[in-house]
């Protein structure tokens, strides 16, 4: 009977977990993580459906990076530099906050899920101004 006692306890724990998680998930789904002052804030959706991008952006970018660097095909739909162009918040015209700084677009979610994206060891974090 020991095992069934444990399993019942487990199920009860799981149920409690789910009940607690659902409101949190709803809150997350309804909230927006687009940073104020960024170009993205003025748009209705991302380059694909927002939920799709939230769930799959890492795969899109990882696929894109191999195709870009190794095969030299830069025609893909998704590009990290476009993410940054759109999601970097402007403090003044032409002045941008890095997307990986405290409270900014990339950091806000990745800090929450304790993921440290290595992108910005090499990639720039603000839109590029080139003459």
């Amino acid at each position, binding site marked *: 009977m020991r095992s069934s006692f444990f399993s019942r306890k487990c199920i009860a724990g799981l149920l409690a977990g789910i009940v607690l998680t659902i409101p949190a998930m709803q809150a997350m789904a309804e909230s927006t993580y687009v940073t104020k002052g960024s170009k993205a804030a003025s748009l209705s959706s991302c380059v694909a459906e927002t939920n*799709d991008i939230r769930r*799959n952006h890492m*795969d899109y970018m*990882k696929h894109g990076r191999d195709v870009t660097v190794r*095969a*030299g*095909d830069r025609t893909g739909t998704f590009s990290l530099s476009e993410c940054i162009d759109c999601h970097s918040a402007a403090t003044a015209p032409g002045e941008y906050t890095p997307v990986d700084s405290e409270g900014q677009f990339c950091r806000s979610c990745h800090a929450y899920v304790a993921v440290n994206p290595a992108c910005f060891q*090499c*990639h720039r*974090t603000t839109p590029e101004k080139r003459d």
Partner: protein
Amino acid sequence: MSKENDQPTMNRRQLIGGAIATAGAVAIAPGVILHAVAGDGQAVKGASSEKRWGMVVDTNKCSDGCSACVDACNDEHNLTGFDRPATDAQWIRTVKLKDKQTGHINRMVMMCQHCEFPPCVDVCPTNASFKRADGIVLVDRHSCIGCRYCMMACPYKARSFVHEVLQEQAVNAPRGKGCVEACTLCVHRVDAGKTTTACQDACQKDGHAAIIFGDLNDPKSEISQVLKTNNSTQIRADLELNTGVRYLNL
């Protein structure tokens, strides 16, 4: 490219649909393998082995005291230094060669020679150092672990190591601490369909026109014509690496 995401997505449905469609197309002609179902005569996207990009440097035209190509390269790829010439990144550098007997001085530029058989690729333990289909030798920083074997293997001392944390890199040249890097033959320009490199443009602008970039596989290209009509040299030709960068009057 395999996806690491284990969640069922829209893409899986599309893949199954696509597989059924492809199966239908193949069933029309059993035994015939259709290689180009989706391609359909479109221009090849990305690097193609039909091309081999290369460069010719005319050492007679390379002018003493001029650093236009080096400056242009640094500007194009945002190669900022730390006032440490021994370790600062150098994708292209000027070299003086003096014949001690005659006193004749040759000036030339040295950079990654984009070998057909690159030693840096041979020694790379993570496959980060690689040669594209069109002959451009690159470092994939996503898999570079910074071991610097390639720097040891390169007979031309063409590669640099980034020792410092960098910020505000050029979009066209992402680069960072702990990775090896070298001349990319302005791969971002090549992929955009442009036909010149930054160093070539700068050299032309300064009136020297010592650098010619182009497709070695195209017999009509300027670089092929120059190589056909002039005696050119590969540096360390004895290593039989078949370099993509050739020198005139060396």
